[in-house]
């Protein structure tokens, strides 16, 4: 009992230490690192969205970039072209991503495993091509430039950092709560055996849809900060490569754990920034790193440590190899009546 208490207080001490470092960070860190930290924070939110869906439901989505694009372009277009003032564009962007997540969720959530991956990839790619093709709205490859961040964030990296940090912590706290709630248990139950959950009478499809929407909303929040930080929204931000970066961060850190998502974002963004300064072959390095991670460490860093008990990649592919879980079965159809 005493020992448990000690561990608990150590943990609180650790958390307090981390928060202290995060808060004091802008005052002692050089600007380059502050810049990097901001990028890690918004990328981290997006990766958490991916990890949530991947870890809790076993669904690897390649259309996260699609939601990213919807939110990012909505904010950029509303602000630059129509000159709408601050609180409205991000809210509409978030709302648009949520609406589209509900719409597309009805299609993609009928599938699982490799089929889900394939279908989401098709939608993600169509979104990317559209952003290139719809030049009257998106301005093609150049994208939309001159998206100004709202007054308080504008020009001040430190203010941006703090607002970003607060939202980031809120997202973590919220996801933490969700994963521990009955809802999180439902999700893991569905991941382990969808048919069992249907038999038990849970509205499986709607639970999945809620998780999908939550994941899209997180992606949208990340996208809004992205647009405000760079001031630009272009098709590169929503290419397949961008989505693979998200996936790489999530799997590298260890899918299904929030800490893994943060760790993965940290590694990938740091690598991203330092490599792009040295070489133009950044995608080659990313591809090779992704290959190595998938082949040798599919459980990621956190999963590989084996100390923390979390859902691992292993359970996902075990589930996928069971072929009956591959497509809509009759049982599943009955499940969401």
């Amino acid at each position, binding site marked *: 009992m005493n020992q448990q208490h000690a561990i608990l207080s150590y943990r609180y001490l650790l958390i307090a230490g981390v928060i202290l470092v995060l808060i004091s960070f802008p005052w002692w860190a050089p600007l380059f690192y502050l810049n990097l930290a901001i990028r890690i924070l918004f990328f981290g939110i997006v990766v958490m969205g991916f990890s949530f869906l991947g870890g809790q439901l076993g669904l*690897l989505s390649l259309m996260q970039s699609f939601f990213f694009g919807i939110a990012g372009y909505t904010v950029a277009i509303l602000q630059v072209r129509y000159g709408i003032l601050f609180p409205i564009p991000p809210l509409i962007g978030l709302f648009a991503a949520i609406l589209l997540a509900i719409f597309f969720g009805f299609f993609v959530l*009928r599938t699982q495993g490799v089929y889900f*991956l394939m279908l989401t990839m098709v939608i993600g790619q*169509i979104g990317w091509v559209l952003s290139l093709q*719809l030049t009257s709205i998106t301005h093609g490859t150049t994208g939309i430039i001159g998206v100004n961040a709202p007054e308080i964030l504008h020009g001040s990296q430190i203010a941006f950092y703090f607002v970003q940090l607060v939202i980031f912590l809120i997202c973590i706290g919220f996801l933490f709560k969700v994963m521990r709630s009955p809802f999180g248990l439902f999700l893991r139950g569905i991941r382990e055996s969808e048919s069992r959950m249907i038999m038990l009478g849970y509205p499986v499809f709607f639970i999945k849809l809620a998780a999908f929407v939550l994941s899209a909303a997180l992606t949208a929040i990340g996208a809004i900060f992205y647009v405000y930080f760079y001031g630009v929204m272009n098709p590169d931000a929503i290419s397949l490569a961008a989505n693979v970066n998200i996936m790489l961060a999530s799997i590298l850190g260890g899918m299904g754990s929030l800490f893994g998502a943060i760790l993965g974002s940290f590694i990938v963004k740091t690598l991203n920034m330092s490599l792009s300064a040295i070489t133009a072959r950044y995608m080659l390095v990313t591809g090779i790193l992704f290959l190595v991670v998938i*082949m040798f460490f599919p459980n990621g860093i956190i999963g590989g440590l084996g100390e923390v008990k979390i859902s691992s990649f292993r359970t996902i592919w075990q589930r996928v190899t069971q072929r009956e879980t591959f497509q809509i079965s009759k049982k599943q159809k009955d499940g969401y009546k």
Partner: protein
Amino acid sequence: MFLFSLAFLNGLTLGALLFLVASGLTLSFGLMRIVNLNHGAFYLTGGYIGLSFLKATGNWPLSVLAAGLIIALLAFFEDQFLLKRFREQPLIVTLITLSIAIIIADLDLVIWGGKPQLLDVPEIINSPVSLFGVMYPGYRLFILILAIIICIALWIFLKKTKVGITIRAGIDNSEMVNALGINVEKIFTYVFVISGFLAGIAGVIGGSFSMVAPGQDWSMLTFALVTVIIGGMGSFAGSILGSLITGMTFSYASAYIPELSNLFIFLPVAIIIAARGRGLLGKELQ
């Protein structure tokens, strides 16, 4: 009327090209539940190899064949060294193919540069032909005929030869085929190599009527995936039907609503997923 006929012919020839790319994809999925996401990269690299061969030799048919063979060899090595160890884990294999697609795309950029390049087609097959009141490039009709020939050859291969029959049996019920003492994993290697060969020649053929350019790999992969979803995963006949539907949809959409042509590709996919999840001719996957 002119636009309508032109769109019809374009749809038909695009469908022919899509069939070459998608048929290999659907067979390998049917056999092992593996989606080869570097199929588009195979296509593009095939186009580039054909381009280099054409510059060196000036012989178009030889370039097509060379691209096909080199990509087939690449597919063989990929299967042996990377995919073979993960046969029972389709998701892992699919992610491996995704990473390879990224690697190949960047290597292509290093070797052949980022500028779009056109493959020259021999004059004999490229003289304009008058059809439905449209002067149509002969080369596109040539593609159609070539695709039909390849389709018939594949059909005969699948129906008559021993390997082909085993492939079909493996798609139907791989456990049963395994139980009969036939190694489905070995059969998969054949299918993967054949699909690589088809993607390679399709790269040269497709590069001769559009451009060979970075980005083509992903767009072709998207088209092929759409085709396979519509036709039904694992169904050869479905890939014929799917490629025609995809080709026609895209062609008519880009004729009448060019800005949204890619959005319309999703329309048949949405209908199929909503109404018949396994695709038009796909069987229920158990």
